[in-house]
């Protein structure tokens, strides 16, 4: 099912500019799209850091940042400026190539994954027909960056952090993949916009009832693990490894890792929302007849993503950290079998048309 | 087990022990370095199974160790002292195999008093740096820059 009736605003922009100015216009259009995404990346990253700190403060009986700018909104910008102006300070005996490519890999992986996420009707850089598959493929490139950083730093703490992260990501990729597959059985397409379109009459979490619910829980657990957040933040577990794989990074190198972590959290939430909660679709067709549909779509999308992100932050500030063997036990002995059984269950339900 | 019982039991096994009930409220046994390990083992057999502390001592002429032992059943305590006349190469057998807590205590005493515990698994400096010279807790330790004596 390839959708042709909706307009993609980015594709429109590219075709318009290339018609007007030829090849130069096409390149200009790509640059503009890239700039928009980079801008979104930076703003969303900074905003998420701010939100994380406020949410943390909320859980910890504190106020959080509230001095720089209104409600402390400019605090993270001040922090970013501080990081920018910091001296890049690394170890002498690092592996230069790996050390310096690590954070680019991490950040490129999350940036590319961001490009196929539909923010609203037609607001999507590239509507790949294998969108979901593409995201899970690209986001596993990010782990390479972390392993590179861990190895290239020539620091044992970093190395342990990098190896832990590798173990964790490779393991949990399976479960999140299975959870995504379960939903794809219902949607019948890998295309992000197609998946959303298929939920017009009811979100998958409701239509797929039991198996979809199980898939959702598995996906949230696996997603938390993939974005290296508590209770799965073993890669940087600060009480054990100092800062784990990014111990030896300073200034913007560190900031890139930090930003990528938050964007990954956003991506995980966005995928969960797209797969289970209908993406930018309004619940119960609340705003369907109104004007400015793309705007309403964006509002619903970000509203749902915010709830998911709040859930992930809630995890972070209440749960203790798992141990590496418990982490692997959880994946290989519980989540993976559950996911496999779940996918069979879903297949049966879809075959006998037992989903709503 | 009263103090007298301990004294008679120990005197049966060992000679050259001196007993003292005046200096502190506990029975104090002073042993020779040769008997030290055996006396400590014997005392442990009597129920004094908790090595409360090992205190390095510098009595001026002699170096030594004061051990406080407790009976965890009854709460009784005794003190076992050992004195070494040799200040240049003081040596004692290690208690590490009798009480595990002796491991760190003996390293500390070695570090600060220079008493060498034979048979100890890691006889290295614990608190001070490896290249430190001298033993600062001894009474004859002098350091013009770091010590202010009023």
């Amino acid at each position, binding site marked *: 099912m390839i959708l042709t009736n909706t307009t993609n605003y980015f594709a429109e922009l590219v075709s318009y500019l290339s018609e007007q100015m030829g090849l130069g216009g096409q390149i200009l259009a790509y640059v503009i799209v890239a700039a928009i995404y980079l801008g979104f990346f930076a703003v969303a990253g900074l905003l998420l850091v701010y939100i994380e700190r406020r949410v*943390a403060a909320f*859980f*910890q*009986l504190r106020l959080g940042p509230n001095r720089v700018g209104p409600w402390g909104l400019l605090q993270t910008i001040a922090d970013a400026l501080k990081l920018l102006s910091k001296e890049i300070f690394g170890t002498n005996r690092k592996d230069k190539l790996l050390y310096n490519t690590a954070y680019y890999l991490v950040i490129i992986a999350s940036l590319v994954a961001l490009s196929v996420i539909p923010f609203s009707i037609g607001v999507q850089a590239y509507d790949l027909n294998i969108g979901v598959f593409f995201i899970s493929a690209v986001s596993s490139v990010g782990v390479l960056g972390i392993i590179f950083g861990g190895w290239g730093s020539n620091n*044992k*703490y970093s190395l*342990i952090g990098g190896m832990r992260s590798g173990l964790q990501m490779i393991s949990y990729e399976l479960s999140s993949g299975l959870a995504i597959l379960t939903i794809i059985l219902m949607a019948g397409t890998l295309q992000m916009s197609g998946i959303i379109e298929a939920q017009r009459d009811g979100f998958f979490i409701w239509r797929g009832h039991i198996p979809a619910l199980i898939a959702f829980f598995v996906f949230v657990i696996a997603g938390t693990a993939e974005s290296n957040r*508590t*209770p799965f*933040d*073993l890669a940087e*577990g*600060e*009480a*054990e*490894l*100092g800062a784990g794989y990014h111990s030896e990074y300073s200034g913007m190198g560190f900031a890139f890792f930090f930003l990528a972590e938050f964007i990954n959290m956003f991506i995980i939430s966005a995928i969960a929302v797209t797969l289970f909660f209908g993406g930018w679709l309004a619940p119960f067709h609340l705003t369907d007849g109104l004007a400015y549909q793309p705007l309403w779509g964006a509002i619903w999308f970000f509203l749902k993503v915010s709830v998911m992100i709040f859930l992930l932050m809630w995890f972070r*500030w*209440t*749960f*203790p*950290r*798992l*141990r*590496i*063997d*418990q982490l692997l036990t959880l994946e290989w002995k519980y989540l993976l079998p559950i996911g496999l059984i779940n996918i069979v269950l879903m297949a049966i339900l879809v075959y006998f048309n037992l989903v709503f | 087990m009263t103090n007298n019982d301990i004294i008679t039991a120990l005197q049966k096994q060992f000679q050259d022990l001196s007993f003292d009930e005046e*200096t*502190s*409220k506990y029975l*104090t046994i002073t042993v020779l370095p040769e008997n030290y390990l055996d006396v400590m083992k014997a005392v442990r057999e009597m129920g004094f*199974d*908790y090595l*409360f*502390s090992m*205190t390095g*001592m510098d009595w001026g002429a002699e170096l030594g160790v*004061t051990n*406080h032992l407790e009976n*965890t059943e009854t*709460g009784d*305590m005794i003190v076992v002292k050992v004195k070494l006349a040799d200040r240049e190469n003081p040596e004692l057998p290690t208690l590490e195999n009798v*009480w*595990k*807590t002796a*491991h*760190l*205590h003996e390293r*500390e005493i070695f570090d600060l008093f220079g008493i060498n515990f034979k048979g100890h698994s*890691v006889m290295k400096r*614990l*608190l*001070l*740096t490896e290249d430190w010279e001298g033993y*600062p*807790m001894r009474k004859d330790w002098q350091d013009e820059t770091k*010590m*202010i*004596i*009023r």
Partner: protein
Amino acid sequence: MEQVTLNTADLKSQEYFLNMGPQHPATHGVLRLILTLDGEVVKNIEPDLGYIHRSIEKQCEYEGYKQIIHLTDRMDYLSAHINNEAVALAIEQALEIEVPERVKVIRTIMGELTRIASHLLWWGVMGMDVGALTTFMYAFRDREMINDIMEETCGARLTMSYSTPGGVMFDLHPNFVKRIKEFIPHLRSVIPKYDELLTGNVIFQKRMKGVGYMSYEDAISHGASGPVARGSGVSCDRRKKGPYSAFASQDIDFKEIIYTEGDNLARYNVRMKEMLQSLNIIEQLIDNIPDDGIQAKTRALIKLPKGEFLQRVETARGDLGVYIVSDGKKNPYRVKFRSPGFSNLNALIEIGKGHLIADLVAIMSTLDFVVPDIDR
């Protein structure tokens, strides 16, 4: 094409060293552990101390007896008052002074407050060590109330130096009783919340249960004391076994918390329950503090009679022994502080072996080290 064969006999795993500390978040200070690791499994632990060694014992030999008390604050700074009390009691024991009943009660109340404050801080940091960051803030909020009480009466929040030989420095602040009566129900109401946040958490339980096992015999052999030994079933509370201050002079009803499992969870539970027992003790004493002065008569220049004096007290970390050898002069001939942390560190060397790094951190947390206490 040439066939490449891999001879598996040539492959071998290699052990490596990891320097944990002196600057490491989990060592809570400047403790340095030299770990031998095989992968993430700890094969050997060698502590390297002395990063905050101030040779307090040597300094004591050149100070008068009244000055010594102020040095002891800086050993186990989380139970500063109990350290002070230990030295004061040792001096009083030597001089055979009978201190007023009011002093005994005040010292005991202060000691128990210190113990609660110490355990609260431990709980917060314990949570952080296993990755639950919120506990820290909760614990510090409630610890703050104790610090305020201390500040009002002693003028200091952490290192109080409140006890003197024969008494205490100042009388209680008029607000003291009122504040304590506010604090007791408050802490009683928050401890169940602590349990909800951390103790009952399934991840936490899995991290703690069965990890860092120490048997009864080992606990004795290692010289472990305090909550560490009581988690292994050793009855060693000095407040019961060698009562001092108000524990000796008054009839206080409290339980010695003993768990026999010997693992991290047992040590954790001992401390959590001890806080409630300390509240009980304070509650029994706070209503009738006797009014017979805060200072026994002592000379301006204290000289101890010739002899050896040992005083053991129960600090938040365990059994602190103050051993004073006096030759009758105004300075002690030798002072030894047998600190509980030093012996408990000895236990870490053995029980930490064979665990993962993450577990080692958790074990260190339940052993509750204060590094200045170990180094002195």
